[in-house]
């Protein structure tokens, strides 16, 4: 191995380590505000100090020097020379954000230079320490330094507003984080005991395999010993599957930390006082799921701080400091995450007025509050009278809902005007195995997750009210339902097909799909069966095609595509709207 390779190897190890340390840094900074104890200060100092040491050992001198500046500020706090004021914590968090961005840069290019804001932050941090140093010079030589820490405050406060404004450019830190997520976050830390468990199982499985092979060679496949081996192998395989899937489970602490920071940054920005309560950060969820709900939760937490929590003046009787609670707990079907605030609550009359204005409801409809809240998930729905930087991020509640829907989860809103709002998100524990329907279309089998289908009807029991070349309309419980052949979305080059909806054979099944309040039916040839399906990701070269979510191997060994009729329905309505 050449020297260059070794260097790269060390750099890689450092970058892995840096991500963990920076996460500790962030956590301790967040803790510092509520609990400026010696233990937290020391932990923060250790994080900075270790990172500096590691950075220098892999030749990242500049990286180390920047940390050194931050470390000086931390030392001052630890030694009681500086108070852990919100502005200082903010600056330390900004420094962390820069280091993280820089780290991600180094991940893709080992010669990556410091991000452009680095110098500003360094100057600010320098001002915080430099304040005391220059003060010391002024007061007179040498030993004045230690006694005269108080006068430094004015110096530092001058620079504080600037740090405030620059550091909290809207969304700067959350954006960086979401970028880092997509770049190099493909590693999971796994306790060694879990690996040992897997090794054990694989060992046992290979013993059974040897027994089966032996029976096969001696033509004794029907002896009890072989039957038992097959049974045990089956049990071991299931166990292996479960344990392997459990490898992907990680706890929610990192996600909660990110959410806490988002809320804190925003509250500081909007000059709102909030207290954040976390519970259940040790609950575990599939890593995939966590990544997919992360943006939705960030959006919801920003919503809660931006729209939910009132400004100090508007809080009236309630304590000036608002409480935001993030809770996760395990339930029978999966995991529930709750975001609740004691803010203004949702004015459902305003929501209803808006819904009527958008044509989603009629004034005469008598709707329950929960029905009214559902309108908030409609695309383009916002009751915010002004578009703030926060709500103008292009992610609406409709996207949140869609993300959760795709995972097979659900959202529930409870809200009382003047008392607060609670969003509950329920997510199934794992998304790797879903109950599915296997169907035939043009002689090929496709897999459809059952949760996407509202109902299945047999077209023969309906009379078509109108029919044209590509669709047919029937009346389902007094409402018109358009039916399209599913195979229009499944065009393969090797097959000629009829694209009209015709009834042939004994049954003509149609799946009814509901998306964004609209319904459409897709007809297909026949239903093969229903079984739980292990979803595998599509290879890169065929991924990203709308409506095709994965593939799997059926019990007979044939590969089959997993399709999402909801996505097809969305495509269909989009095309219809455009026409």
């Amino acid at each position, binding site marked *: 191995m050449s020297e260059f390779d070794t260097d790269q190897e060390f750099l890689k190890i450092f970058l892995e380590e840096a991500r963990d340390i920076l996460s500790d840094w962030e956590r301790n900074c967040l803790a510092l505000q509520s609990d400026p104890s010696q233990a937290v200060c020391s932990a923060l100092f250790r994080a900075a100090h270790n990172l500096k040491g590691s950075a220098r050992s892999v030749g990242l001198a500049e990286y180390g020097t920047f940390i050194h500046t931050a470390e000086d500020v931390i030392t001052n706090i630890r030694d009681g020379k500086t108070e852990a004021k919100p502005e200082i914590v903010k600056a330390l968090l900004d420094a962390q954000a820069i280091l993280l961005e820089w780290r991600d840069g180094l991940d893709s290019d080992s010669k990556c230079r410091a991000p452009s804001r680095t110098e500003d932050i360094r100057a600010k941090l320098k001002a915080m320490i430099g304040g005391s140093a220059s003060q010391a010079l002024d007061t007179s030589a040498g030993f004045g330094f230690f006694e005269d820490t108080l006068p430094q405050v004015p110096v530092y406060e001058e620079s504080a507003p600037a740090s405030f404004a620059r550091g909290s450019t809207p969304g700067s830190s959350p954006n960086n984080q979401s970028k880092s997520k997509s770049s190099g976050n493909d590693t999971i830390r796994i306790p060694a005991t879990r690996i040992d468990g897997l090794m054990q199982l694989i060992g046992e499985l290979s013993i059974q395999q040897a027994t089966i092979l032996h029976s096969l060679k001696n033509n004794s496949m029907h002896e009890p010993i072989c039957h038992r081996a097959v049974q045990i192998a089956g049990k071991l395989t299931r166990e292996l599957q479960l344990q392997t899937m459990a490898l992907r489970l990680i706890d929610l602490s990192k996600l909660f930390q990110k959410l806490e920071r988002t809320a804190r940054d925003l509250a500081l920005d909007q000059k709102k006082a909030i207290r954040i309560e976390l519970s259940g950060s040790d609950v575990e969820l599939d890593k995939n799921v966590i990544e997919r709900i992360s943006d939705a939760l960030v959006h919801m937490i920003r919503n809660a701080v931006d729209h939910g929590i009132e400004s100090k003046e508007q809080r009236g009787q309630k304590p000036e400091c608002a409480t935001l609670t993030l809770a996760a707990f395990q339930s029978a079907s999966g995991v529930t995450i709750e975001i609740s605030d004691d803010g203004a609550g949702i004015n459902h009359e305003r929501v209803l007025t808006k819904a009527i204005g958008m044509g989603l409801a009629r004034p005469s409809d008598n709707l329950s509050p929960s029905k009214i809240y559902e309108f908030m998930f409609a695309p383009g729905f916002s009751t915010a009278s002004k578009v703030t930087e926060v709500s103008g991020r292009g992610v609406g509640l409709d996207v949140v809902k869609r993300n959760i829907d795709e995972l097979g989860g659900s959202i529930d809103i409870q809200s009382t005007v003047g008392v607060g709002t609670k969003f509950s998100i329920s997510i199934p524990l794992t998304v790797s195995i879903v109950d599915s329907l296997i169907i035939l279309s043009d002689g*090929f089998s496709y897999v459809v997750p059952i949760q996407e289908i509202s109902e299945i009807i047999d077209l023969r029991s309906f009379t078509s009210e109108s029919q044209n070349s590509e669709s047919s309309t029937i009346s389902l419980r007094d409402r018109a339902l358009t039916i399209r052949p599913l195979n229009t*979305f*499944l*065009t*393969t*080059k*090797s*097959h000629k097909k009829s694209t009209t909806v015709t009834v042939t054979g004994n049954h003509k099944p149609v799946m009814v799909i509901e998306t964004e309040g609209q319904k459409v039916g897709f007809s297909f040839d026949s239903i093969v069966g229903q079984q739980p399906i292990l979803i*595998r990701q*599509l*290879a*890169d*070269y*065929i991924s*990203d*095609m*709308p409506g*095709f979510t994965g*593939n*799997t*191997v059926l019990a007979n*060994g*044939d*590969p*089959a*595509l997993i399709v999402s009729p909801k996505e097809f329905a969305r495509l269909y309505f989009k095309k219809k709207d455009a026409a």
Partner: protein
Amino acid sequence: MTEQDLDQDRFLLFTLNKEHYATPLMGVREVVEIQKPKPIPHTTPSFLGVINIRGEIVGVIDLRVKMGYPALETKSEAMMVFNTAGGSLAAIADSMEGVTRIQPESIDRNASIDSRLPLHFLIGIARIKDRLVTVIDLQKVLEKEEVRTLLRSA
């Protein structure tokens, strides 16, 4: 010479429209029996679909169609499987001829040839017995494979 160097000059020979080709053996993951692929919607004509290789789903490329030759009804008996960054891909040629050693110095790297294969992955031309063999890095060719015909959602 180390073991690795010995492997470097081994090549897998195959034919395509009566022409002879060779690809570095080290790039080939395995050679498997042909299976009937299951078609995937919205893909290019050369992408025949996917097959199941021991539980793994693998895409299948018809090299004939990819190179612009007419597709044959009777396909070869085996497929070469490659690992690419985008996932595993199996390639079907007309026939698989076997493995041979080609000394690096016997490959003419400056030969000007007219081939339908993407020329930047061409290694050169070698003479084996009386035949001229086009030496190409198929793994690299497939690495750049784009099989989607539908606009991507993202």
